[in-house]
């Protein structure tokens, strides 16, 4: 099973190569690299990843500038058509700024940049990204962020929880996120944003492979279509 997966690179992205390696590791197919200034995506994409980093130097707000870059109009259109879109770290921030996901990522409550392995609980094991995990399973994935403090109003949080759109939670808290939310899904379930970096947990040399399964899940979901 292979796929046509793309990684978007913004000026200041720094996890784009790691993401491309993860996408190739599960499928054997090299990921297509797309530059933010491109107005169009390659055709027939099966998967789009927005990587971590500091797009546009976090000017204005993390992800704000990238969210209005030319390629994001094409990403939004692809998401609307149902193409799976994964945003990790800065990619999550970009997806919220582009309003493809609800909420926003604020400065970490403790002000510090946090870089460590965290335990996550899989809250939704039905999505195309998480179907290979067990509900309630705890996994270990590294985080590395300054603005990972998930915020949404109480009504939105209730709706996300009620609709099973909280994908992952921090087991012991992390950055001040409302209700310890680490990753969320859009209503259709084909767009997911998460602060932890699954692409940094795909090889035993990374210290763990819990992240690899996320990419395998997405590939397997494609195979079922």
């Amino acid at each position, binding site marked *: 099973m292979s796929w046509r997966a793309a990684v978007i690179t913004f000026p200041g992205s720094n996890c784009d190569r790691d993401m491309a390696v993860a996408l190739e590791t599960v499928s054997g197919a090299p990921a297509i690299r797309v530059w933010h200034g491109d107005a169009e995506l390659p055709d027939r994409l099966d998967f789009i990843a927005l990587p971590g980093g500091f797009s546009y130097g976090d000017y*204005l*707000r993390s992800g704000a500038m990238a969210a209005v870059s030319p390629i994001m109009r094409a990403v939004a259109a692809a998401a609307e058509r149902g193409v799976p879109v994964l945003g990790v770290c800065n990619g999550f921030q970009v997806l919220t700024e582009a309003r493809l996901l609800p909420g926003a990522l604020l400065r970490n*409550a*403790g002000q510090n940049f946090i870089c460590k392995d965290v335990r996550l609980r899989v809250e939704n094991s039905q999505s195309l990204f998480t179907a290979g995990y067990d509900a309630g399973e705890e996994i270990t994935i590294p985080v590395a962020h300054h603005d990972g403090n998930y915020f949404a109003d109480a009504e939105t949080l209730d709706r996300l929880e009620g609709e099973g759109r909280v994908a992952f939670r921090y087991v012991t808290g992390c950055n*001040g996120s409302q209700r310890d939310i680490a990753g969320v899904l859009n209503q259709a379930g084909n767009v997911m944003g998460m602060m932890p970096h699954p692409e940094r947990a795909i090889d035993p040399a990374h210290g763990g492979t819990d992240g690899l399964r996320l990419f395998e899940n997405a590939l397997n979901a494609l195979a079922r279509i």
Partner: protein
Amino acid sequence: MKVRVHVSLKPGVLDPQGRAVHHALEGLGFAGVSDVRVGRTIELDVADHTTDGQLEEMCRKLLANTVIESYRIEKVREGAEA
């Protein structure tokens, strides 16, 4: 026309930066400061025919994230600046 857009975090949204600045003010011996919120001011030079609606749209689409921030648009009168 010169326009200033004042962007601030909505009430109830945690402002760790403001909290740190508050703490630092206390460290400098300033008593009686009960709260500090840090915002941002963006100055724009725009064409005179720019409408209020266009300014609002700039704020909503980019300058402020209305999920967490509120904004106030101030038109600066020419000559009012020292």
